[in-house]
C-alpha cells in the first residue's frame, strides 16, 4: 500500500482504474511486470509521467507473449507509433483489452486490427495468408493456404467485396462463442 503511493498519485491510479478493466492491485501488478522488463529504463516513480518506452524486444520476451504467433502484431497494434515499443499506458491498454472483463466488441475490434497485417482497415486475402502461415508455422502448402483463405472469405464476407471488414469480422466472431474466452491473456 505504501509502495503504491510512491509510484502513482492517487489520481493517476484512479484514472487507470477508470480507463482499464483492472483493479488497483492488478494495475500495480502490471506496473511491476512492466518495470521488471526493463528495470534500468523504467523508473519506480511515475508521478511525473515520464516518457519511457520499453522496446519491443523486451515486450515480446514476456512469457505471456513469448510464444504467441501474433506477438509482433499485438505489440504493434497497441503501441503508439505502431513500432511495437510500448509505454506503460500502451502496456496497460493491451492487457486491459486482453483481460477477461473486456466486452466482445472491444476485443473483436482489436483482434481485427491484429489480423489486419497491412493496416488498411480490411482483412484481405494477403492478411489471411499471413494469419494462416503464422498459425500453422508454414505446415500447409501454398495451395492449401490459398484454399483456406478462399473458404474463410467465403464464409465470413457478408457483403462479398472480397475482403473482411470490421463488421464482417464482428459478425463472424458473434458466431464463435469461444472467441471471448480464447482472446484472453491471463496476467
Amino acid at each position, binding site marked *: 500500500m505504501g509502495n503504491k503511493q510512491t509510484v502513482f498519485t492517487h489520481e493517476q491510479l484512479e484514472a487507470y482504474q477508470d480507463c482499464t478493466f483492472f*483493479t*488497483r492491485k492488478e494495475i500495480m501488478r502490471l506496473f511491476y511486470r512492466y518495470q521488471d522488463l526493463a528495470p534500468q529504463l523504467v523508473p519506480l516513480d511515475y508521478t511525473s509521467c515520464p516518457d519511457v518506452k520499453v522496446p519491443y524486444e523486451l515486450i515480446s520476451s514476456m512469457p505471456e507473449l513469448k510464444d504467441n504467433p501474433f506477438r509482433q502484431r499485438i505489440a504493434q497494434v497497441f503501441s503508439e507509433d505502431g513500432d511495437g515499443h510500448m509505454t506503460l499506458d500502451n502496456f496497460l491498454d493491451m492487457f486491459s483489452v486482453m483481460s477477461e472483463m473486456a466486452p466482445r466488441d472491444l476485443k473483436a475490434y482489436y483482434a481485427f486490427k491484429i489480423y489486419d497485417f497491412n493496416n488498411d*482497415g480490411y482483412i484481405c486475402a494477403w492478411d489471411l495468408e499471413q494469419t494462416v502461415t503464422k498459425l500453422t508455422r508454414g505446415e500447409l502448402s501454398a495451395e492449401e493456404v490459398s484454399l483456406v483463405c478462399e473458404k474463410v472469405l467465403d*464464409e465470413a464476407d457478408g457483403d462479398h467485396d472480397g475482403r473482411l471488414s470490421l*463488421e464482417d469480422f464482428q459478425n463472424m466472431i458473434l458466431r464463435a462463442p469461444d*472467441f471471448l474466452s480464447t482472446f484472453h491473456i491471463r496476467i
Partner: protein
Amino acid sequence: MSAYYRNNGYEEDPDYPDYSESWNRSWGHLKTQDYTDSPDTLKNSGYPIPRSNPYSADYRTSLDYPKSLAEPDYPGSQNNPEESGTRSNPFFAGSRSSDYPTSLAEPDYVGSWSKPSHSGSSREPGYSESQRNSDFGGSRSSGNYAGSRTNPDYLDYLGEPDYPGAQGNTNHPGSRANSNHPGSRRNPEHAGSGIIPYVDVLGEPDYPGAENQPNSPNFFWEPDYPRAENSPNFWGKPDYPVTEDGRDYGSSETSEITREVLSRTSSFRPSLRHRGDGSLGIVGRENEDYPENIAMKSMNMASVPGASGNGYVNPAYVGESSPHPVYGNPPLSGCEWHKSPEGQKLIASLIPMTSRDRIKAIRNQPRTMEEKRNLRKMVDKEKSKHSHRMFELNCCAQCLSSISRAYRRSKNSLSELLDYISLWQKTLKVIGSKFGTSVLSYFNFLRWLLKFNIFSFIVTFSFIIIPQFTVAEKNTLQFTGLELLTGAGYFRDTVMYYGFYTNSTIRHGNGRASYNMQLAYIFTIGACLIICFFSLLFSMARYFRNNFINPHIYSRGIAKLIFCWDFTVTNETAVKLRQKNLSTEIRENLSEILQENVKLTLNQQLIRLSAHLAAWFVSTGVAVACCVAVYYLAENNSEFLKNHKDPGAVLLLPFIVSCINLAVPRLYSLFRLVERYEMPRHEVYTLLIRNIFLKISIIGILCYYWLNIVAQAGEECWETLIGQEIYRLLLMDFVFSLADSFLGEFLRRLIGMQFITSLGLQEFDIARNVLELIYAQTLVWIGTFFCPLLPFIQMITLFIMFYVKNISLMMNFQPPSKAWRASQMMTFFIFLLFFPSFTGVLCTLAITIWRLKPSADCGPFRGLPFFIHSIYGWIDSLSKRPSYLWVVWIYQNLIGSVHFFFILTLIVLIITYLYWQITEGRKIMIRLLHEQIINEGKDKMFLIEKLTKLQDMEKRANTSSFTQERRDVEQPGALYVKEHDAAFDLRFRRSVQEENPKA
C-alpha cells in the same frame, strides 16, 4: 439563389410526402454531386472530400448491428444540429428505423460525409474558415444528404399554407430559443417513443414542431451562404438561431430523431464554448434536459446482449476504421483526438450519464490510454462545471453522485478483496497456458461447483449446525478410524446426520428468543435448494445467451478455426503442438469440404445404421443390467449386513457402484471403434448421453431403493442410514477418482511412453471428468437433507481433486488435438447439471417430504406423520396469531392452492409461447437483415465503382459538360434509384443551371 431554391422545392412539393429512403438517398447523392460540381462557392472546397469518401466503415458498422438501426448516435452527425442537418434528421432517422429493406443504405452517407470533414478540420485546426466549411459539409451529409433534404424542406415550409404562423415566427431566434429551453416538449415525447423506436415518421406530414419550422428559411440560408462564401467571423452570431432551429425540428419528431439530434446538439456544445460565445447558458441547459436520452440509449444498448456499449463504441470505431487511406483520417494524436468533432460528441454524450455508465463507456473505447484519460478529464471537467452551476438546484443530485462514488470505491475494494480470495488464479493460468481453454473449462467448472458447495455449507452451517451444536449431547460412541470410510459408528451421533438433530425448540437463558429446529431444518434445506435452483438457472441462461447468440451456427467454420487462436496458450511446446494440430485440423476440414458430396452407398449406410443401433442397444442394455445388479445387491445387502457384523461390509455396495462408474464409461468409449462417427462432435454428444443415462439411472435406482425399501422397512432412524449410504458412495467415488488419477492415468502414460509408443500420451477426457463431477454433485444435493454436512465434505473432496487432477494433467496428458467448443460444451454441462441431475434431486426430495413417514424417535421431525406436517403445524400455529394472518393467507391462497398454480402455469405457458413467437420473428428479421447486408455490399461495390468513375471524369470535366457526365453516371443506377432519378435530375439540373450563371 436561395430564393430560387425555395421556389424550386415548392414546385416539387407534391413529391415531398413520399420521401422514401431510396428517394432520399438517390437524392442526396445527386444533391451532393450538385454541390461539388457547381463551381460557385467555396463550399466546393469542403465537398470534394466528403464525396470521395462516402462508403466508409461507418456505414457498415451501423448496418451490422441490427440494433444500431434504431440507434441514433451517429458519429458524424455532430454538426448537424447547427444547420440544415437537423431538419433532415427526421428523415434520416425515420427512414433508418422504419423500413429496412431500402433504408439501410442511407446511413453510409452520414458517416462518410461527416468524417472527412472532421479530418479536414483536424488537419487545419487553425483555419477556422475551413473548419466551418467542412462542418457545413458534414452536417449536410450527416443528416443524410443533408443538402438534399434541407433545401426542399425549406421550400415546403415557405410556400406551404398548411403551416400557420410560418411567417409570424420568422425573425425571432430568441423566441425559438425560449421554446427550446424547457425541453419539456421534447422529453416527454422522447420518453414515450423511445420504447417503440420503430414507429417512425417517414413522410409524416404533420410535424408537431412545425411552428418553428417556418423560421428556417430566413435563418438558414442567409447565414449559410455567406459562411460558405468565406466569412469566418460571421459564424458565431447568425448561427445560433439556426442551431435552435435545428433542435426544434429534432424535438418535434419521434424519439429517435430527438435523441439523435440531441446528442448532436449537445455534443456540439463544447466546441461552442470554445469559441467563447454567449450561448453557453442555452446550450448547457439543453444538455441537462436530456439525461434521459442518453440514459435510454445506454439502456437500449444494455438490453441487447453482447452488444453492450456499442453505441459509444461505434463512433469511435468509425473514426479509426476509415477504409480509404487516401481520405482517411490523419491519425490524431492522443491529445488532439478529444478535440475532434467525434471526440467532442463522445464527451457530450458521456456527460449526462451516470458515473458507472460513463466509466464503462470510457473503458470500452478502443482508444489509447492517453485518449481515454483525456476524455475522462474532459468529461469530469464538464461535469464539474455543470454541477457547479446546478449546485443550488440539485444538491440532492450531488449527494447522490457522492454516494455513487463511494459505492464505486467500496465496490472496487470489494472486488480487490474477492480477487485476493479467488482461488487458483496462478494454477489456472498455467493450465491454460499448456492446455488451452477447453481443458481449462473443466477446472473452471470444478471451481464453480466448489463455490456452490461453499455457499451451501455456509447456509446449512449457520442455520442448522450451529444451533444444534449449542444443544448437542455428549457423544458416547467410540472413534476407531474406519468411520472415516463408512461414515457410521462415531459419526452417527454427530451433527453430520439427520438423526442427531433435535426436534425441540431451542431456548437459551430466559430470553424470549427461541429457535424451532424443525422449521429451521426444513426451511434451510429448502432455501438452499431454491438458491441453487436460481443460480443454476441464471448461469445456464447466461451461458445460453452468450453461446447461442446466433440461431444459425455453421457446423464447420474454417474462419472460426483461424480467428479463434487461443491466446491463453503461452507455453512454447503447447503452442507448437497447437499449431501442428491446427494445421491437421484445417487440412481435415478442407478435405471434408472438398469431398462434401461423397455419398455412402446404401449398403454402407445400412451397416453404419446397424452399428449405431447395436451400440445403442448394447449401451442401454449394459446400463439396465448395471441398474438391476445394483438394485439386487442393495436389496440383499441389508440381509447380508444383518448376518455380518463387520463394519467394513457396508462398503460393498458403494464399491460396486464405483466400479461400474469407472468401468462402463470406458467400455462406452470403446464403441467409437465400431460406430465411426463422421463428426467428432456427434461422438462426444453420444458418449455424453450414454454416460449420463448410466449414472442417472444408477442414482435413480438407488433412490428408489432408499425411499421404497429402506424408508418403509421400519428401521430405526432410516434417514441417517440413507445419509450414511450417500456419504459412503461419495467417498468411494472420490477414492476411485484419486486412484484413477494416480494409478490409471499414470499407468496409461507409462504404457503410452514406454511400451506401446504408438499410443502416445492420452488426451484429457473433459466430458468424462465433468460427468464425474456432475454425478458427485447430484449425490451431494440428495444427501444434504439426510446429511447436512455433505456440502462440506464435497468441498474438501473438490479441493483435493483440483490439485490431484492438476498434477495428473501436467504429468500424464497432452493438449487436446481438436479445437474443442469449450463454451458450448460448458453450456451443455450446466444444462445437464440442471436437467436430469438437479430436477431429479428435487423430485426425490419432494417425494421424501410429502410421502414418507419420518422415523419415530430420531431427527427433528420425529413423531410427525409426514415431513411436510411441520409446515402445516406451523401455519396452524400462525393462524392463531392475528398479526401473522397474512402469512397464512399467502400460504393458503398461493402456495397451497392448486388453482393458483394452475393459473400460474397457464400464464407461464402463454408467455413462453409469445416469446417463442417473438424469437421466430427475430429469426426472420435476422435472415432479412443478413440478406440485406449482402445486397448492400453489392450496392456499395456498384456505387464505389460509379464514384471512382465519376471522380476520374470530374478531373477532366469542365462546367459545360457537367450535365452530360451526370447522366452517364446515373444511367446504370440501381433500380430504385432509377425510379426517382428522372425527377431529381430535372430539378437539380435546373437549380444548378440557375446557380451556375450567378456564380
